[in-house]
């Protein structure tokens, strides 16, 4: 099924966000953010540093409590959930890929243990099966099976990031949040990671909200774009449309790379 067909086939968005607002004292984090995310859709959030991208993502993922607004996941009111339920979503249906793999991995635990953790968290109790799944997922993100007992501290930055992705996807989440997943990597390593991510998103039918300041990343991955400035969404639309024919003057600056982002 193409994305359009999927979107037509489902009658409600996977994530429905309305008027999401979060301030830090008098300072705006993000304000009045409204959007729908459909199953299988990749939404890119771009904007210069300090524009509120990470604040928005943290609110969506339940790491920060917004001051105003609502979030519905698959019809369920996320902000009305108890913490147990929300954290349970966080390790089953949802995944979060941090910019810095050190924040998303346990550096003192083997690669296999890192990938297996979410399985064990939801009750897997067969060592051989957990290990088998860990190896299969490492293979899928192009890490050799004989590294399964090595700690991530012995891995390169690109490998660490791929391991973090495997660790997140092992429980087959439906919704993945990513904050600058390619930041801090060499250009050639970035390209390989992007290629891998594109394959996974397509094969697994993942819905993704990805934050980046790199327009090349969203051009490759995102179906739709939101452009943020000073906490507000100033423009949103299909990726190619926004990038090729930006309407807001800020987006025009962003696209013409006049802004150092």
């Amino acid at each position: 099924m193409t994305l359009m067909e999927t979107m037509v086939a489902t009658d409600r968005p996977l994530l429905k966000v309305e008027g999401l607002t979060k301030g830090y004292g008098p300072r705006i984090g993000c304000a009045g953010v409204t959007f729908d995310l459909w199953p299988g859709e990749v939404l890119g959030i771009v904007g210069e540093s300090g524009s509120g991208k990470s604040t928005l993502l943290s609110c969506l993922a339940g790491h920060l409590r917004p001051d105003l607004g609502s979030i519905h996941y698959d019809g369920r009111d996320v902000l009305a959930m108890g913490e147990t339920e929300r954290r349970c979503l966080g390790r089953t249906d949802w995944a979060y890929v941090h910019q810095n793999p050190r924040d998303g991995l346990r550096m003192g635990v083997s690669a296999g243990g890192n990938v297996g953790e979410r399985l064990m968290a939801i009750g897997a109790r067969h060592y051989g099966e957990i290990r088998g799944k860990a190896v299969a997922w490492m293979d899928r993100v192009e890490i050799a099976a004989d590294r399964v007992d090595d700690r991530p501290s012995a891995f390169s930055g690109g490998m660490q990031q791929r391991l973090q992705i495997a660790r997140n996807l092992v429980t087959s989440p439906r919704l993945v949040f990513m904050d600058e997943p390619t930041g801090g990597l060499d250009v050639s390593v970035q390209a390989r990671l992007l290629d891998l991510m594109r394959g996974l998103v397509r094969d697994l039918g993942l819905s993704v909200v990805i934050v980046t300041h790199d327009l090349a990343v969203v051009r490759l991955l995102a179906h739709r774009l939101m452009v943020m400035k000073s906490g507000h969404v100033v423009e949103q639309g299909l990726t190619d449309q926004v990038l090729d024919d930006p309407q807001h003057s800020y987006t025009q600056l962003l696209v013409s790379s006049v802004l150092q982002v």
Partner: protein
Amino acid sequence: MTDQAYNFAYLDEQTKRMIRRAILKGIAVPGYQVPFASREMPMPYGWGTGGVQVTAACLVPEDRLKVIDQGADDTTNAVSIRKFFQRTAGVEVTEATAAATLIQTRHRIPETPLTRGQILVYQVPIPEPLRFLEPRETETRKMHELEEYGLMHVKLYEDIARHGQIATSYDYPVKVEGRYVMAPSPIPKFDNPKLSGNPAIQLFGAGREQRIYALPPYTSAVSLDFDDHPFQASKAPHHCDLCGAKNSYLDEVITDDHGGRMFVCSDTDYCAGRRAAGQKGRLWSPEPQEAAP
């Protein structure tokens, strides 16, 4: 004889009431770590000040107290704690597990099965079973609250990945009544099955960390494991060289500097009881030692 300079069992009544409240809460919520305001005791941390405070709060003049350290009644630590309560509470003391009403222990559960009405008090250095994996106290509390115990299995997974088997042999974590994961203190995992369904009241006191927790009588405590790597209550594959016991936990003792060694029961009361009843081990020669006054 009680030393009149002290209140009964050293602690003042108000402190004992506070500790008893923590104990009762612990009994009401098996395996849950209850914070308490640990007091300075006239002995250093690491000498079981948590256990001593719990014992002090439980003792009544009619009690008969036994104190063991690694299974033995005669180590410095056990002797000094026993003397402390003889002096401050004037209670009777005993080395016989069956005769004791309250047993304070470090690192062992007696071999002789405990019975209804007995209290076993454990000295606990680190009460938090998740500490090794998650150093943040706020986070471990949250994990207990939300029953997020996946990390415990990550630790066991790492054990198997590194050593081919679960190498954790002391302080082996248990799940209590299907709810809280609990550190049984550094007892050998051989003792873990005795935690579960025990007719005695089991109380755990951590002085430095200011925590008390409990297993009421007949509480289930299941050792964590994997389906394909089941928990095993292992011990050295020998019989006791003194009393011949097959199923008691053994200490290895070096007997000379030519590699000579022997295995003896770590529970000295159990071993002596068996010998008194005529049981003999490989190296038991009663006359010379027994004849001495």
